[in-house]
């Protein structure tokens, strides 16, 4: 984990143009950048002051702090999950083009399985259908622009601080 953190720190300190391959340009931002021992809090005194100035009620601040607690809980969960992996394991699946190729192959396989369903016995058709369902669900869940999640989180924060309903 520490090795991974150091590598990421080096990566972020470099200029974007320096030795960036096409693959690197396509890379999804890494998910973990801090070690588990680092004390992390989403809310600092400055943010709380801003919220007080904006006349937000104590209830809203409490909800924001609850969100902070949940964030940290999930962050530690991610760190625990990734600590068991080799540091290169996450880098190995980062290129968008390779993901697209994988999804195309999997979709092709799902189409073949679904088209053969009517022509095989029901037991085999059920297995084909299950594999096809898994492929379609997996692609639906994973093949999306994860940057959109950021917009969702921004909307959530706006709702919490009472700027949006």
């Amino acid at each position, binding site marked *: 984990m520490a090795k991974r953190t150091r590598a990421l720190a080096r990566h972020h300190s470099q200029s974007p143009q320096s030795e960036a391959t096409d693959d690197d340009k396509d890379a999804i931002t890494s998910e973990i950048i801090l070690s588990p021992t680092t004390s992390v809090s*989403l809310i600092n005194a400055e943010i709380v002051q*801003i919220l007080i100035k904006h006349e937000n009620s104590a209830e809203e601040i409490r909800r924001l702090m609850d969100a902070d607690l949940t964030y940290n809980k999930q962050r530690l969960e991610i760190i625990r999950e990734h600590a068991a992996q080799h540091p290169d394991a996450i880098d190995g699946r980062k290129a968008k083009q390779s993901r697209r190729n994988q999804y195309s192959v999997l979709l092709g396989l799902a189409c073949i399985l679904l088209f053969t369903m*009517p022509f095989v*016995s*029901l037991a085999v058709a059920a297995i084909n259908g299950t594999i096809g*369902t*898994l492929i379609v*669900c997996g692609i639906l*869940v994973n093949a999306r622009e994860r940057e959109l999640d950021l917009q969702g989180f921004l909307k959530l*924060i706006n709702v919490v601080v009472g700027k949006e309903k």
Partner: protein
Amino acid sequence: MSFRTRFILLAVFNCLEIILSLWLLKSRFNLDLSQRLIDLDLNTPHGFQLLLGFMAIGLIGFLVNFLLLSYRRSEFTYDQAISVLKAGARS
């Protein structure tokens, strides 16, 4: 939910779904496992019910698989979350 838990749940659910659904269709609709979907006679209630049962099980399987796969960890980095929080506080 961790990746391992989701993986095990997916595997168990799909195995159980196949076994239970085939057993249910066999016991209720006298399903012959060697029968093919293309051979089903949809003009008879038996064939039509069999096809509907098969599709209903498929739909349930799709929904459960989708929920299990989408019940995943948050993928925000700390820096992203901080910038979003600050933007939210400013707006």
